[in-house]
């Protein structure tokens, strides 16, 4: 598969297949991210369509100071934000949100109700191809701001610096959202996949 920089070169030389390849690579990830900013799928699709057009129009002026991917997602996030949010977005990061339900620890701070085993069960279902929908479902249950960070870091494989640039977050807030999102997701997976005893 062509790297993003090769696609960019081909795109600049007017190769329409390069554009379709780029869409193929990023359309779905962009839809997923857009969906956490706007009220419904239809609006998310509109935002992503607009983004692709903006990408074509901006191509000439893209200077390559950030990666192509970071640039695409920044355009998307700017558009999605101005289109409107489905929830109060100024959720204060300072609000405490423990990684694990405090009732699972005893008075001494040690586990009273320790993590249930689920890794093997999840791997078996993964091999059987029965897992992806459930993983997607669990991601959908995260609060929007946590989901955005988890998607970009763990699914798109972006660095923390890239995620801060795309979502306009400070490094500290990025890490708090990542921690809460992953912690919550772990709990959802535990509920979903734990061995039935």
């Amino acid at each position, binding site marked *: 598969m062509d790297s993003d920089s090769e696609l960019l070169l081909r795109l600049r030389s*007017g190769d*329409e297949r390069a*554009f*379709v390849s780029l*869409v*193929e*690579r990023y*359309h*779905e*990830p962009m839809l997923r991210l857009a969906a956490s900013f706007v009220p419904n799928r239809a609006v998310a699709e509109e935002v992503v*369509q607009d983004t*692709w*057009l903006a990408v*074509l*129009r901006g191509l000439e002026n893209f200077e390559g100071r950030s990666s192509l991917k970071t640039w695409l997602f920044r355009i998307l996030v700017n558009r999605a934000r101005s289109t409107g949010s489905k929830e109060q977005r100024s959720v204060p990061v300072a609000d405490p949100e*423990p*990684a*694990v339900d*405090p009732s699972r*620890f005893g008075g*001494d*701070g*040690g*586990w009273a109700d*320790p*993590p249930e*085993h*689920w*890794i093997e069960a*999840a791997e078996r279902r*993964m091999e059987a191809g029965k*897992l*992806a929908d459930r*993983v*997607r479902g669990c*991601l959908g249950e995260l609060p929007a701001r946590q989901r955005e960070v*988890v*998607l970009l870091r*763990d*699914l798109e*494989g972006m660095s*923390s610096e890239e995620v801060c640039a795309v979502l306009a977050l400070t490094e500290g807030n990025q*890490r708090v959202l*990542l*921690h809460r999102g*992953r*912690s919550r*997701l*772990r709990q959802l*997976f*535990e509920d979903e996949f734990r061995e039935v005893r």
Partner: protein
Amino acid sequence: MKLLHRRDLVCREAVELVTDYLEGTLSARAQRRFEAHLAGCPHCTEYLAQMRETISLTGRLEPEDLTPQMRDEFTDLYRRWQSEQQ
């Protein structure tokens, strides 16, 4: 009097350090303290393994392929944009 330094981590605190640990942002001292806790705590060791598995499961989601209809739509979009250029 309570001894303030070198107090051992408790599990409730250890689970809050997992992300910083995986990000490599703990100080050397905090990292040693975290690892010392793990060495004596199978539950927190399991917890850390589950956080790694959580990251890994998310990372293995595949983007769904574009439908042929969508491919056509985007080819059209590209052509419309190109004709604007001329």
